[in-house]
């Protein structure tokens, strides 16, 4: 006999939205997207090209060659989805273990600042690189 755990699965109430529900939903959507784009990125960089063969010229070819606009768009998508997914995950971890309101707010504010700086650096690199 199979035991079905009724506690699992989506709640039966109507979808109400709100930031946390959207954050939960975003993690599923971006997770599936990253399964494709992050794994393909790893496959190209670590298996096909291989890290020991990566040089400055590899980056020049990739971002300014005939397929440059495609790879720039690809890397922007990877940057945005990976960072949003990763930093939202870190935010959830802070909420799970840091219960004191002051520390909780401070760490999440710090996380947001780091997120904005890093996404800015990444976008500046991908968009601004001319070779």
């Amino acid at each position, binding site marked *: 006999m*199979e*035991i*079905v*755990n*009724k506690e*699992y*699965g*989506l709640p039966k109430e109507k979808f109400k939205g709100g930031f946390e529900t959207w954050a939960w939903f975003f993690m*599923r959507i971006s*997770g*599936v997207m*990253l*399964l494709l784009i*992050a*794994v393909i990125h*790893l496959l190209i960089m*670590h*298996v096909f090209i*291989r*890290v*020991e063969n*990566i*040089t*400055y010229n590899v*980056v020049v070819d990739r971002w300014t060659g005939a397929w440059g606009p495609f790879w720039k768009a690809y890397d922007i998508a990877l*940057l945005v989805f*990976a*960072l949003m997914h*990763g*930093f939202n*995950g*870190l935010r959830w*971890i802070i909420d*799970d*273990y*840091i*219960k*004191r309101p002051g*520390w909780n707010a401070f760490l999440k504010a710090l996380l947001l600042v*780091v997120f904005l700086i*890093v*996404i800015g*650096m*990444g976008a*500046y*690199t991908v968009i*601004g*690189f001319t070779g």
Partner: protein
Amino acid sequence: MGNAISSLWKGITYKGGPGHYAFILHRVTGIGVALFVTLHIVDNFIVMFGEEAFSEVLHLYSNPVMRLLEVFLIFSVIYHAFNGLRVIIMDFWAPSSHVQRMLWWLVWVIVIPLSLIAAWFTLAPIFGLR
């Protein structure tokens, strides 16, 4: 601080079986990948300072310790991706306990071979193989 440690300790010592190990490993690999992605964006930023500066950064990644961390990174991404898929399946499709157990093993059936292949490609050059 004591609060954070005690809630973390409760999270680790809770006896939840495979689903609980999956959860802990999902968090550990998630934190690892998030830290690497952050480092990776910062190192890539150096490309804006020209060929010489960027070559120095690339040189840091060529040492054997970094190659070993690279294997751990690839394992983390693959595990996090396929365990995440397992979580999504359980979220949207309330499966029976039988299916849940099967999904947990299925994650490893996919993750172990892919990780071993990645480990071979990454570590073989260190030992002068391939």
